[in-house]
């Protein structure tokens, strides 16, 4: 088995096409060819005569491109952390949203946003606080699940309990500390309406490094699917690998939650589709579900900002509307897909 270059490159090309199409769609339609021309012009790759209004450049570079890119990196992060948690818990139903990890990150961010409203450092603190919330929640879930030998019921139920507790705290904080709830509420519901280049620059490096680590360690994700004794006698330090997965995936989840709020089910659906198409090898699963996650979230975000134009639906509502029934379907056939 070598790295799945062919599939990865093909899916990257599809993802790029989706990105360009998404940028072209909106109240002002700009054709994909025009977008390519404008980007080439801006990058000064070749000499092109300017044949478009000035406003097009502003729409592309200030509004749509940061939004599409943010949706892409968040989708990538959620999907890869979903696949990694599935490896860790040896359970295809694990997902940062269902395990309560995203809610934990959201609670920490809410604390920071409500308590330090006027601090100019707030955008930099957000990812770090989200990480601390995520790591606490995943540790609790992992501890409880390991005590029950990884039972599916325990895993899902402890996720529900953690999500309920953290969501209750988040709601309480929101009601008692901020007179204008709308920005916080729309962030919690999950979306990219306020996407900015600065947000991409803050979370981008976390997500890219963490994705690189996940891809390079994906062989070990395969080995921990064996039991502890088997993996150890094959020369694997299982506790070290598990610790790396917990920390690495929590960084990914936290980075995604920081500016995009809670977007459910992406981390569940994408690895599942890839697993059905290409099998369970994590060396395929990690990179391909990452690319699928990015593409899926870009498409969802495009739908959420255009379907009820000029009103925007938070993308978290959309993914939950479609992801919820999908999850129920998975639960119904869970016996067949369990490891």
């Amino acid at each position: 088995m070598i790295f799945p270059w062919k599939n990865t490159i093909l899916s990257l090309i599809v993802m790029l096409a989706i990105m360009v199409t998404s940028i072209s769609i909106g109240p002002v339609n700009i054709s994909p060819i025009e977008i390519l021309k404008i980007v080439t012009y801006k990058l000064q790759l070749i000499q092109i005569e300017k044949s478009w209004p000035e406003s097009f450049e502003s729409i592309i570079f200030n509004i749509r491109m940061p939004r599409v890119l943010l949706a892409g990196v968040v989708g990538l992060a959620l999907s890869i952390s979903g696949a990694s948690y599935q490896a860790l818990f040896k359970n295809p139903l694990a997902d940062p949203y269902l395990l309560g990890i995203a809610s934990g990150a959201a609670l920490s961010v809410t604390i920071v946003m409500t308590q330090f409203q006027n601090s100019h450092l707030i955008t930099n603190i957000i990812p770090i606080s989200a990480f601390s919330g995520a790591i606490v929640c995943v540790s609790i879930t992992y501890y409880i699940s390991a005590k029950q030998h990884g039972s599916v019921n325990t895993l899902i139920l402890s996720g529900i309990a953690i999500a309920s507790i953290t969501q209750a705290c988040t709601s309480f904080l929101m009601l008692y500390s901020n007179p204008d709830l709308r920005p916080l509420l729309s962030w919690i519901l999950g979306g990219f309406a306020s996407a900015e280049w600065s947000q991409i620059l803050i979370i981008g490096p976390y997500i890219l490094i963490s994705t690189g680590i996940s891809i390079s360690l994906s062989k070990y994700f395969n080995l921990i699917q064996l039991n502890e004794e088997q993996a150890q006698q094959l020369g694997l330090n299982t506790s070290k690998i598990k610790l790396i997965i917990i920390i690495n995936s929590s960084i990914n989840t936290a980075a995604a939650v920081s500016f995009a709020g809670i977007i459910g089910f992406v981390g569940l659906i994408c690895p599942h589709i890839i697993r059905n198409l290409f099998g369970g090898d994590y060396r395929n699963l990690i990179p391909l579900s990452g690319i699928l996650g990015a593409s899926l979230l870009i498409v969802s975000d495009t739908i959420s900002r255009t379907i009820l134009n000029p009103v925007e639906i938070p993308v978290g509502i959309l993914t939950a509307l479609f992801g919820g029934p999908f999850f129920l379907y998975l639960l119904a056939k869970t016996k067949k897909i369990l490891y």
Partner: protein
Amino acid sequence: MNNLLEIINLSFKHEDKYILKNINFKNSTGKLTGVIGPNGAGKSTLFRLITGTLNPTNGEIIIGDQNIANLSVKKRSKLISLVPQNPEMPSDFTVFETVLFARHPYTNFLGWENQKDLDATNESLELTKIKHLSKRKIQTLSSGEKQKVLISMSVAQNTPITLLDEPTSNLDIDNQILILNTIKNLQKNNHSFLISLHDLNLASLYCDELLLLSKGEIITIGTPKSVLTEENIRKTYNTEIKVLEHPLHETPIITPVINKI
């Protein structure tokens, strides 16, 4: 014959209680040694000490000329392979992918395999006669086939010694024979096996040598004929038995003596 595995004064204590006490034992190249004894005798603990999952309280385990306590986990995994009693195999991997897992000790630090690993996997699938299952997913296999995949993994791991912890439990007699014949075939390649078995008759039939454990101590080591005596079995298993002779192989057969109701 060389001494491949040497266990010297090995003891293991758990919460002030000796699970294994003063185990001394040598196994030479190409031998199939059966470890027998009643439940709780310490068979699995002995295996865990040899694989290094547990650390001994006292004593040494030498493989070839190396003390395994001084070896890294990766080096150890090139010397000893284990077919565990309660394995887990990810159900949506194919047989080939699963057997390829066993090449991990030979891969680079990122764990990617090369052509040599693919060849070794193919070879071990052929040796264990499951090449035709290569593309099947683990979830579609029968218990006997899964057990063969585990044995194929230990072959692909390419270690001079393999430990098999109850490889025939939960299997019907046809699959028991199939598994033990596979092991016997592999033994021809100078591969050594340490196998724990509940079924004394199978142990008697297949093993070159038996090691009888009871309450953490070795009662006796020797040929099946010398170990499986009425007195030894009565003493360790606390059960009345009769020892007969196999009509074809002249090995001992154990049969229980019961009072007809």
